[in-house]
């Protein structure tokens, strides 16, 4: 890894930690943008230019903005004071951190001890965007069409879910 990749990796990890640990939702979304940009830089360093630009456009341009919009449209009033003192069966913080730490530890041990990984880097001759487009339109055309269908269905589904339904006067709408 060259120094640029190390900096990008550190920024990605720091942004990720901030994105899941800060209290303000907008700050979380902005730190998420930092992480996505850094991962896009990592992709650039690995020679995957098109994926890097797709990452910036989709994650930074669409998903992060969606998350900002969603956090603006919802306002978390915090825990209901009447229910704040209910005893919990399990304590969520240590349990979640413990599970995540255990999974990370197992994965790190696997990465560190694996003998299956190739240890010499073959010289990179990354496919150009032109070749990528030709592959997408010939060999992977069925997958491309299915993804297009999936995106259309997801868009329609999201609109149908989020649209505000008109209130009927005879029906008592909950709260």
């Amino acid at each position, binding site marked *: *890894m060259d120094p640029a990749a190390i900096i990008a990796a550190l920024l*990605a*990890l720091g942004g*990720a*930690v901030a*994105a*899941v640990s800060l209290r303000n939702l907008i700050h*979380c979304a902005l730190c*998420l943008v930092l*992480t996505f940009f850094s*991962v896009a830089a*990592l*992709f650039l360093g*690995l*020679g*995957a230019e*098109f*994926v890097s630009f*797709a*990452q910036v456009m*989709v*994650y930074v341009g*669409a998903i992060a903005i*969606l*998350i900002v*919009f*969603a956090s603006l449209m*919802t306002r*978390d009033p*915090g*825990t209901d004071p009447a229910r704040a003192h209910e005893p919990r069966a399990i304590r*969520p*913080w240590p*349990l*979640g*951190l413990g599970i*995540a*730490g255990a999974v*990370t530890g197992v994965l790190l041990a696997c*990465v560190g001890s694996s003998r299956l*990984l*190739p*240890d010499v*880097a*073959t010289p*990179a001759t*990354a*496919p150009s965007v032109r070749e*990528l487009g030709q*592959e997408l339109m010939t060999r992977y055309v069925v*997958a491309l069409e299915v993804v297009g269908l*999936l*995106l259309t269905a*997801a868009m329609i*589904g*999201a609109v149908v*879910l*989020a649209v*505000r339904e008109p209130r009927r006067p005879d029906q008592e709408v909950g*709260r």
Partner: protein
Amino acid sequence: MTPLQRYLVVSTLLFGVGLAGALTRRNAILVLVGIELMLTAANLNFIAFWRYGPNPESAAGIVFTLFAIAVAAAETAVGLALIIKIYRHRRTTNLDQMDALKG
């Protein structure tokens, strides 16, 4: 440590942070943020394996990542629409208070 292993360590840590966020945060939007971080870590793994694998001239690794990004976008759109719908109905995004099956 080979370069591939360094990238795998970075993606593992990213995955761990995302998993910790998805498991410990109680705001539904932040759980979705954690899931996005895990998906990004998976994409980083794909690209690292493609680059340091036996044949980086093949387009398969890049195409796989592109499809993963598209599916992640669809998942986020539907997930946020569900969160907004639940918020309209129950006036909360706290997962601990979304504990009723009755509407």
